[in-house]
């Protein structure tokens, strides 16, 4: 207790008697819900979307596309001076009654491995996103 003169003590006593403002009911729960959402966003949102798994998935997908397109003659990379030849792509596009020539040079085990990895990362990505969505809806309720 502070030692002050009678008149100032009267001010202090009045303020102390009034006490603090009473917080609205349920404020603690609302704060905890917000904290739940914030910590979920930190741990789950960033991880599946732009985390290492997400980037690996995107990387494998892009590399897979490049490898497959090179071996199906869709790019001009084999010529040494063109990364992507749009004319070649159009010329090789299947016409009615004429199928596109696909010459696979990639060994089958490597192809299956690539497909397996793609499937694994896709499932992992999907499941973690679903798990996060479920936890966020639980945190909001």
């Amino acid at each position: 207790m502070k030692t002050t003169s009678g008149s100032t003590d009267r001010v202090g006593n009045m303020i102390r008697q009034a006490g603090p403002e009473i917080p609205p009911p349920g404020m603690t729960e609302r704060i905890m819900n917000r904290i739940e959402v914030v910590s979920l966003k930190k741990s789950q949102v960033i991880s599946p979307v732009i985390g290492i798994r997400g980037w690996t998935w995107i990387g494998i997908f892009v590399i897979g596309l490049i490898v497959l397109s090179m071996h199906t003659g869709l790019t001009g990379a084999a010529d040494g001076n063109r990364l992507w030849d749009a004319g070649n792509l159009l010329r090789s596009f299947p016409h009615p009654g004429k199928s596109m020539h696909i010459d696979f040079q990639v060994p089958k085990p490597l192809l299956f491995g690539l497909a397996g990895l793609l499937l694994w990362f896709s499932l992992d990505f999907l499941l973690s996103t679903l798990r996060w969505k479920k936890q966020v809806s639980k945190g909001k309720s």
Partner: protein
Amino acid sequence: MRHILQMNNPADAYIIEQVVAGNKSLFAQLIDRYSAMAFTIACRILDNREDAEEAVQDAFVKVYEHLGNFRQKSKFSTWLYRIVYNTAVSHARSRKPFLQDLDGMAFQMPDTSSSDGLVYGFTPVEASELVGKMMALLPEEDRVIVTLYYLHESDIDEVHTITGLSKANIKVRLFRARKKIQECMARFPDTVSLCSINTQ
């Protein structure tokens, strides 16, 4: 003695340690312990319960996010109230200015005729209403200073840490606020609205 009182509550230190370690449900205990004073500080600045709750929520979320950075060199309450104060000030700056109805500030003093055993003849509810009205006569920062000094029983150093104002400025503001409140109280049982006209 004062030094001992200013030390961190051991229970706070344990809870903070546990929350940082991942036991976030314990954070609710810290909220329960300090939400009343945090809410009071926010109310004094924002003068509106809804805005004050929003500011307090934001402040507690910030505290949770940065709890690992709290080095326990000061009291947890001091650190928390500083964040609440800054958050409430930011909210006050960002919200649209509103016109206050001065007529609404006029009120009759509570009836003190049957008030045996009550301090100055007021029930806590009446005192709360009266203090709220008197606080409305003060600038935002002065309200917080008076609240921290009298209600939280902070010393000038702690008020300085929470508000960031200089110690000399705090003393001057405290003196002026006290004088204004005393003038209002001296006019009992006149209305505070009359007092507000005379003292401004």
